[in-house]
């Protein structure tokens, strides 16, 4: 959902997934840059549509995704039709966090690998919070998270070598009783701040009423007003 007070088309996060390949991606476009929503969605879609596996090379996948996403971003902007103010800003590139996750079945559990740049988070919950990645302390959320950069727009050419962002990786196992949450920073910070009160139950209780529940938390100033993206993954016997 978009930040309270903003229009729906001003949402700058992105989430993509493929249940067949058990791949998930979430990105939080930085609002200080133009075309952040295009960059965020280019990143998540590039991962889901690629055949690269985090199990093979978790850092290399992020680098490859960044390159493919640059193609989508660069070609998705009608550079010659932009008004001067938008062209001058878009030329400096767009920024986004990125969290990728991939799972695969083994005999007695499900293995996962996740790679992250910035403060979009992965949580694994059994009876308690078992995994909190890449941030485990709510005080670590700041205003300047690490970001993936699109590189510059025109007049800089499309085919350039991009600086490799600082990628964190985690590997582990999950079980069918576990619940997994992928979330951008506002929800993630709230989850960690209220860990002892099992806040994830609010996300799991009633998906139809989730937007209202989040809006209530924002209005009570318990959660920061921002674009909100959260995905909850549970397992069934099928």
């Amino acid at each position, binding site marked *: 959902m978009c930040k309270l007070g903003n229009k729906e088309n001003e949402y700058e996060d992105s989430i993509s997934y493929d249940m067949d390949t058990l791949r998930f991606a979430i990105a939080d476009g930085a609002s200080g840059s133009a075309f952040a*929503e295009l960059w965020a969605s280019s990143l998540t879609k590039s991962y889901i549509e690629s055949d690269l596996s985090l199990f093979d090379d978790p850092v290399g996948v992020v680098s490859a995704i960044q390159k493919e996403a640059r193609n989508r971003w660069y070609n998705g902007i009608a550079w010659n039709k932009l008004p001067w*103010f938008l*062209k001058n800003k878009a*030329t400096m590139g767009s920024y986004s966090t990125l969290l990728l996750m991939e799972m695969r079945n083994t005999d007695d559990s499900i293995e996962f690998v996740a790679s992250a740049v910035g403060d979009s988070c992965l949580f694994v919950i059994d009876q308690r919070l078992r995994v909190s990645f890449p941030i485990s302390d709510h005080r670590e959320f700041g205003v300047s998270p690490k970001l993936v950069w699109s590189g510059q727009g025109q007049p*800089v050419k499309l085919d350039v070598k991009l600086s490799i962002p600082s990628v964190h990786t985690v590997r582990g196992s999950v079980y069918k009783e576990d619940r997994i949450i992928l979330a951008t920073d506002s929800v993630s910070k709230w989850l960690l701040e209220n860990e002892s009160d099992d806040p994830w139950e609010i996300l799991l209780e009633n998906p139809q009423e989730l937007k209202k529940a989040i809006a209530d938390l924002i209005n009570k100033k318990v959660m920061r*007003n921002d674009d909100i993206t959260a995905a909850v993954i549970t397992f069934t016997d099928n």
Partner: protein
Amino acid sequence: MTYSSEISRRSPGLFIFLLDQSRSMSHKLGGSDRSKALEACDAVNRQIYELIYRCTKTDGVRDYFDIGIIGYGFQAETADSLIKDSTMVPISRLSETPLRMERRTKKMTDPDGNEIETEFEFPIWFEPIANSNTPMVRALKLAKQWVDDWIAEHPDSFPPVLINITDGAATDGDPLDVARELIEMGTNDGKLLLWNCHLSESKDQKTLIFPDSEGDLPTTDKFAKQLFEMSSVLPEPFVKSAEERSLAVSENSRGYAYNAGLDELIELLDIGTRTPSSNLQ
């Protein structure tokens, strides 16, 4: 806590620039080959450009700020808005109405690490004028009228920031009274900020930026002291911004540059406009 209001389209901020256009502004600015009028005009154009840049999103320029520009001295005893047919306008309006565009160049480092020089379009809203006397009292009174109206409509917004750029004493009376009235105005988020930048013709004179004591100013220059008294004390967020730039400031520092050259003019404008921008939501 003051000076903490979120700046958003529902709760915009306000900048008013007051620009001295008296005849003496045609003289060269200390440390520059160009006139005070040209450098001041260019600096205000650049600040508006920077503010528009910060407000630009994919869907266009969002109205996080209202902007007013008052010129004084372009005609004898006259102060008026430099925005055609308007007083204060939402910032998106300025993005649509530059007077003309200039091709400028800037250096960029491409992702391969190569430094490249690229051209970009830079908008010009105001041209330099240096024509008559210095009716600063009129300009401040006009700003007060505007601020009165604006505060009534935005009682909870970040307080207005007024930046006055001048090179000499008022020729239409004592501006201290109206300046004091302005400084006492404000919103529920804090008092209005009136900053003054005094431009110098000599690069050899002592320059002061954000002085915290009248004692630092030359005793022989009555105008220096008057502008100090006309300037707001820096609130904490602005003190922090100045400290981050390694400027010597204290809790008593005033929003004031005396005998400013181009560097001090840009520094003062940048701290004055960038600090509220950190409240952008």
